């Protein structure tokens, strides 16, 4: 394998992030938090004195919902959609090994999506700053902190969806089902399993970085046992990202492409 092929793979992957319908879908998703912020600003102006929790907009919308959906769109688009469309074969028949193609999907796409997410977070706080109550509680480091946490979550989710895209024929069902049960329902249940979800550990990172680890209003439902420490959350997210990345690379090495028609 030549270094020029590896470089081309990185460039080509980056180019695909900013093209096609997937980009528009990501833009629409990432525009939701600033739009909700704008709506809240308008409401706050009408009803002066009403507390507006802008952290909730970035925290819950950006990290909890928007990130998962954005990562899913890109994870599916770069793997199974390209297999279905018949374009994956061109890339997999190049001079780069298949594991490197899967690696590039995650390591090239994550920072670019994180940049888009940062823009969304910055826009949200920019709009929040013009409200009568302003941005509460935290200083200018808020955007950097949120962006960092978002990048970590994006990497884990993207690695998972890339793995699903290469490993499962019905990857959309697997991806949506897993995320729905494990990431949306499980964190809402008062069980120990919530400590093994990406969304919970992402929240822990965020709380330690912004609220000195205090639960605050974001963990009203978490009672009866200790939430993970910063170190435990970091370890969980690192291991999850590495595990799904490795599984994705192995799945790419073993994925047969039967063609768009799947026939003979």
């Amino acid at each position, binding site marked *: 394998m*030549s270094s020029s092929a590896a470089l081309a793979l990185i460039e080509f992957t980056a180019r695909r992030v900013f093209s096609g319908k997937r980009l528009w879908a990501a833009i629409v998703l990432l525009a939701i938090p600033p739009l909700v912020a704008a709506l809240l600003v308008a409401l706050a102006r009408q009803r002066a004195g009403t507390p507006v929790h802008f952290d909730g907009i970035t925290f819950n919308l950006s990290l909890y919902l928007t990130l998962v959906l954005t990562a899913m769109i890109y994870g599916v688009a770069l793997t199974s959609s390209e297999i279905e469309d*018949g*374009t994956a074969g061109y890339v997999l028949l*190049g001079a780069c090994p298949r594991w490197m193609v899967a690696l590039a999907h995650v390591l090239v796409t994550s920072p670019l999506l994180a940049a888009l997410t940062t823009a969304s977070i910055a826009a949200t706080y920019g709009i929040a700053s013009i409200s009568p109550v302003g941005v509460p509680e935290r200083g200018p480091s808020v955007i950097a902190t949120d962006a960092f946490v978002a990048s970590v979550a994006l990497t884990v989710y993207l690695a998972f969806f890339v793995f699903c895209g290469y490993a499962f024929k019905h990857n959309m069902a697997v991806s949506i089902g897993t995320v729905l049960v494990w990431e949306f329902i499980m964190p809402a249940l008062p069980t120990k399993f919530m400590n093994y979800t990406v969304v919970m550990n992402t929240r822990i990172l965020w709380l330690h970085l912004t609220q000195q680890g205090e639960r605050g209003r974001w963990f009203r439902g978490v009672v009866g046992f200790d939430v993970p420490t910063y170190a435990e959350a970091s370890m969980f997210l690192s291991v999850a990202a590495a595990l799904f990345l490795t599984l994705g690379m192995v799945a790419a090495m073993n994925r047969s492409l*039967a063609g768009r028609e799947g026939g*003979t």
Partner: protein
Amino acid sequence: MSDAVIRADRLNKWYGSVIALNDVSLEIPPGITGLLGPNGAGKTTFMRIAIGLLRPSSGAVEVAGEDPWNNLAHNLRTGYCPEHDGFYEWMTGRAFVRWLLRLRGRSRAEARDGAHRALERVRLLDAADRAVGTYSRGMRQRLKIAQALAHDAKLLFLDEPLTGTDPLVRAELIDLIRSFEREGRSVLVSSHVLHEIEALTRSIVLFHRGRLVATGDIHEIRSLIDRHPHSVSVRSSRARELAAALVRDETVAEVSIPAERSLLVRTRRPDEFYGRLPQIALELGCEVEEVSSPDDNLEAVFRYLTER
């Protein structure tokens, strides 16, 4: 030891409970070889295994003496033109070929020059800077061939490259594919239309329902096909006028109009008919949008071969 470029040994491929390739053992010599069989015969599966996109369920395949699965050196020696259109529709044709060259390790300058040469070779330079999404069927076929040959592949796998093209494009592509052999490349080209393969090569491999039925010279199968009327589907905006002209032609046995812009012609002299069709269309001044051959005539031959 033979000089086969592709060698398969007891190759099997299952899709769930459906068998796509059934105990296929064969050797394909250098030069152009036609892979012939009706739809669903296993041609695409065989090609995809040989190119390294599919893993066989059992058995082995060697291309130039090597296993093609996850083999980067094999990727650089071979070029693949898939049957179905799979493109980044937002990309220009030039960018598409250039990117694929770069993914095969070419520098920016080499990729730029290589893409230009390949597009020139398939006569697509005029449309090279247009988005692929705006391309006609014939242009898409040319682009797929351009990307397959751009990196100087020594072995080309062309899966139904002539399907859906108009007579003019078809003739050009046939000339182009034949020129690859003169350059020392080997070509495995698939089709379900005997006439197309016959125009390209005498060496054929026949598949039917996942099994290898016969290999060898096309002339042996040719005598069989003449016993069965050959069906040709023609698309034209002036289908009725074209039908009226065709029915008077001595090469045509029967003409029907199954749809508004579509003709179904039955002929026992396909060679002459394919030569006459452009002339008749030209005399009428009507455009032929697409010519294709349903595989029912070939199916009849395969029935004969498999039941004898």
